[in-house]
């Protein structure tokens, strides 16, 4: 327990239920509401997992991954993409970024997932009961 999760989404109404649910099961939550802030917070706080929205202002999810890959810590970061864009080509472009150890667990279409299922997925990926 006590693992740190960064919730990166420009919509507060998405971040808030995620934050509440994940805190309820014992995760430490930090937030970012745009791309640049996501990168800054991640590089400062070194979260165990980033729940990353793909479409965000200032820096897109794709650019964030690229930047992370250039960072000493960031190249080993673990990410779970949360999106409302079901675009497999774009996703494979993102996940196929070379020269990094970045772990992209999965991409979830937000509207298709119940909040409890998202929590279960996070617990599973982080190896937490």
């Amino acid at each position: 327990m006590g693992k740190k999760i960064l919730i990166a989404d420009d919509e507060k109404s998405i971040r808030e239920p995620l934050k509440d649910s994940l805190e309820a099961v014992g995760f430490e939550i930090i937030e970012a509401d745009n791309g640049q802030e996501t990168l800054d917070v991640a590089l400062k706080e070194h979260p165990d997992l980033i729940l990353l929205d793909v479409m965000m202002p200032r820096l897109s999810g794709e650019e964030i991954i690229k930047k992370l890959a250039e960072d000493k810590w960031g190249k080993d970061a673990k990410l779970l993409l949360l999106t409302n864009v079901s675009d497999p080509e774009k996703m494979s472009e993102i996940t196929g970024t070379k020269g990094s150890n970045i772990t992209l667990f999965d991409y979830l279409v937000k509207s298709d997932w119940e909040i409890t299922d998202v929590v279960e997925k996070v617990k599973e990926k982080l190896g937490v009961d």
Partner: protein
Amino acid sequence: MKNQFSLKHIFGFKRKNRPDKVNRTSSLPNDQILKEKLLSGGAGDFFESMPEGILLVDTKLRVIAVNKKIEKWLGYSKDSVVGKKITEFDFLDNESRKVIDNSHKKRLQGSAIEPYEITIKTARGDDFSGLVGASVITDDDKKPLGEIVTLSNLGEQKAIQYEQEQYVSDLKILSETAIGLAEFPNTDEIYTYISEQLQKLIGDTIVFINIFDSEKRVFRLKNIAGIKDRFKTGVKILGQNPYETEYPASEKSIRNLFQKNLFPITKGVFEIGAGKIPRPVARTIEKVFKITSVYGIGFTWQDKLFGNAIVLLRNNNKLREDIIETFIHQTSVALRRSQAEQALEKARDELEDRVKVRTADLQQTTQDLEKFKLAVDNASDHIIISDENGVIIYINQPAAMAAGYSRQELIGKTPFSWVHQMHNKYYQKIWHKIKVEKKPFVGEITRRRANNEVYIAEVHIAPVVSNGKILFFVQIERDVTRAKEIDQAKSEFVSLTSHQLRTPLTTINWYAGLILGESIGKINEKQRKYLSEIKEANQRMIKLVSALLNVSRIELGTFIVEPEKIDLQKVSQSVLAEVKKSIDDKKLKIIENYKPEIGKVNADPNLIRIVFQNLLTNAIKYTPEKGTITISVDRVKAKDSDQEGYLIKCADTGYGIPKDQQSKIFTKLFRADNVRDKSIEGTGLGLYIIKSILEHSKGKIWFESEMNKGTTFYVFLPREGMVKKAGTKKLD
């Protein structure tokens, strides 16, 4: 000729060989001297052989000798005449005696007397008409010894003259006929003319003219002359036109007519009647009409019989064969010519009629063609006609305008000469379809105008095939660029807004979920119920958005088909597990029937999943409680073909699809009336999506349905499975 033996000649002859002066060396009486001088030796033979009757008389007109002609003509024997004076002959009337005596006396006095006519009563009782001439015979002292009296048979001469006149008249009729026939109009009037001429030629006769129909083997009556009026009246009473009457021609009569131009019909009217006129009746007819003999005349030409004349002679009238045969010959030629010309005229008339009809047809066709051309020229669609090698032979104005060239510039080029970009494989595919398979091609091609502007054309190319040979290709195109742009914009709009919709939908879903999960505090039953309603409505909205997204992906053509080996049974079972709750809620019975030997199928798992999801959720939705749903997968042959593949069958015992709406069931946003009435939720997109998926991957879908009994959907996948398709979007 008998005319040549005139008295002049006789005497001329006599003067030459037998001088009138007789040598009076003996004392014999005059008659003895005459006999000796004129009748002895060869002269006697000559005397007998003369065509004239000759009497040798003394100066007192006493008969010394006569030749046999006198005996023959007058019927009196030599002995009853010789020794008698002519003026004492009791068979001469007084006037004749007087004339003879006077002329005799004048001659003895040295006057020349012209021959004169007398009539003698013969021993047979009839009158003999003769011409009398005489010549005085003198002795050496020019003293008359007697006379040679000649008697010419005037009756015989008249007969000869008559015969000659008749002959001339016949010749006149023949030549008149020849001219008449030659100038005669080519109508049936020729038969009247022929029968009239024949009647003129023969005299008192009845003539029937028939033509011979060689196909029907009948004679057809064309004209009657001689009793025409009476016959006509008779026939009128019977109410029948005598002409064109047909009667059978016996082979014997045909043979006779053909072999002999003219032949006697020995049994007369009875024979003509061909058994239809009883013998007594035939005899009566012959009696009434004074028919004494009957002849048949055949008109033949080049070994063919084409007509005949039946000639019934009356009052012992005779037929002159040579004249008639000439007539027949003449007439045959003319008749034949007339018939040939009639046939020719008929043929010409028919030809003219046919030409008229054809001309009218042609005019109509030309008018139709012109209308057609105008229509095609002015059609809004682009129309191109090219020959079997794909060379343009016609292009309408809109097509040329779209290409940006003149019509003349494009004729002779191929319809592919102004494409923007076309993969060689696509080009070959089109050609294979239209040229080898000889089937129409339907698709899109990107074209470039003369000004380099690019446009998308929807193209239909149909080969026009006759007897397995391609005559030409008809290509109809439409510039769909604008329509495509609008479609694209529409789909992009749907896609974008769907994404934007998903975020607030997620928010509602998650917050409602949090409250319902009571992690932030207890809620009462009413609150739970209301929140559940909100969540459920929201879920429907999420599904609708997903479906709309799928439709826009399908319509944009951006969805991916990524086939891999999958187990249809597993997909089916997995989807069933997903929808287990709704199955249980409606207490539905599920029957699963998977053939173990189906093995794995090459298909996109995502798409197959959508197919199963839609089939099963529809079956659940539209089947009342406690109903049955049967799902099966089998290997089969395709409907209407020998193609092998996989058949997914989903049968329910539900409401069914109304007959009148079955054809619309795969249409986008369509929902049948009966399920709308039952307020069953649905987007009207599910079947449209499945059908689109299957059409994009060589599969098929169809169904059978009966109202309130249920519906069975069939999905067929070819053995080789789905075909890979590149794209950018997955379907959800």
